[in-house]
């Protein structure tokens, strides 16, 4: 078995559903690299990148998720994310602007959004492997 089935689901729709080689998921306690035959894990997610690699280790898709859950078993990986954006549709300068705006706002809600936006910025700026 060289592929694992991967579902990325948001409340509004099913975003990704295919057999892939590797998925990197931003678990709460650290990133999880999911390969076929992974042990059964259930984890909550922090805001971060979900990277999907094909069987021959090339990057297929990359997403930013603002948190959620994942359920992993040897054949399947499901990510339930609250909001999902494709990474290459994000624009660095607009996120910076968002952070600035949120920073001046001192409610509990905006604090949460701020941490998401910061994670988003990190997701855009920090480099990643196109091939693993």
């Amino acid at each position, binding site marked *: 078995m060289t592929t694992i089935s991967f*579902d990325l*689901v*948001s*409340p*509004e*729709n*099913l975003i990704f559903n295919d057999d892939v080689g590797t998925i990197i998921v931003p*678990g*709460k*306690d650290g990133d*999880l690299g999911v390969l076929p035959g992974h*042990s*059964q*894990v*259930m*984890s*909550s997610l922090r805001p971060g990148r979900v990277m999907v690699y094909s069987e021959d280790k090339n990057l297929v898709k990359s997403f930013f998720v603002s*948190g*959620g*859950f994942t*359920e992993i*078993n040897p054949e399947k990986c*499901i990510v*339930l994310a*609250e909001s999902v954006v494709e990474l290459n549709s994000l624009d660095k300068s607009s996120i910076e602007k968002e952070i600035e705006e949120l920073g001046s706002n001192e409610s509990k809600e905006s604090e949460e959004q701020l941490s998401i936006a910061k994670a988003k910025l990190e997701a855009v700026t920090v480099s990643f492997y196109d091939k693993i």
Partner: protein
Amino acid sequence: MPSLKDIKTQINSVGSTKKITSAMKMVAASKLRRSQEKAEAARPYSSRLEEMLSSLASSAASGEGIIKLLTGTGNDQNYIVVPVSADRGLCGGFNSSINRETFKLVKSLESNAKKVQLMPVGKKSRDFFNRAMKDQIIESFVDLNVSSTGYESALNISNKLQELYFEGKFDKCILVFNKFKSAISQEVTQQQLIPLDVSNSEKEEEKENSSNAIYDYEPDEETILKDLLPKNVSIQIFKVLLESDAGEQGARMAAMDNATRNAGEMIDSLTLKYNRTRQAFITKELIEIISGAESI
């Protein structure tokens, strides 16, 4: 006896009403398709969330804080009832059945000496309860447009509910909404939202699942559950909003279909009346002419 002109205007006005209702029917039909697709698209998330929750639910004994969403406050004195109606009328019994059912529910709870508060969703139920039980409304949500705003709208309601719950304002929350059965039929349904109703039919099934699936939890079961439970409340509300939206369009389509058909029948009978009246006039005139000619 109405004159020919009167009947003609009546026919015309019924005709234009018919045009409006048949247009509304077509609009509702296309909206229905869209809402149904939305409801369809939201299903994978909610079903998977439920699966996860069910495998976790057993691990929660009793507790403080967020776990209370699952286990309850231990009281059942204070209720909050959330009727979910549409923002607009002209959709048959859709709104009034919600209002009636909610009204009945509130009365029956009150007769059991429970304290009931209301949080209507949608203009039609807000307006109704503004008249009927104004002082029991603590909050209302209107103009949600769930098909365009999506999940956000559900989040607002869910946040407000949870805020009130953790302030200890209520012990149980019941949703009253129209369950979408098919394009032409909706069923008024009550669903207990908080605490989570564990007497679901799926429970049997899930027991079997949980026994053969041993998961590692990261960070740990309780933390995940704490994240999962508030999300579950939002997602349940989202599901209900979508169902109600699809139901509304279905109800409107059926109501407008009926109205169009009725207008058609009315036009037929009016046309018949028009023709008869016209014939009667002609006959009368002929008689007058003939009797006039005879007298000469």
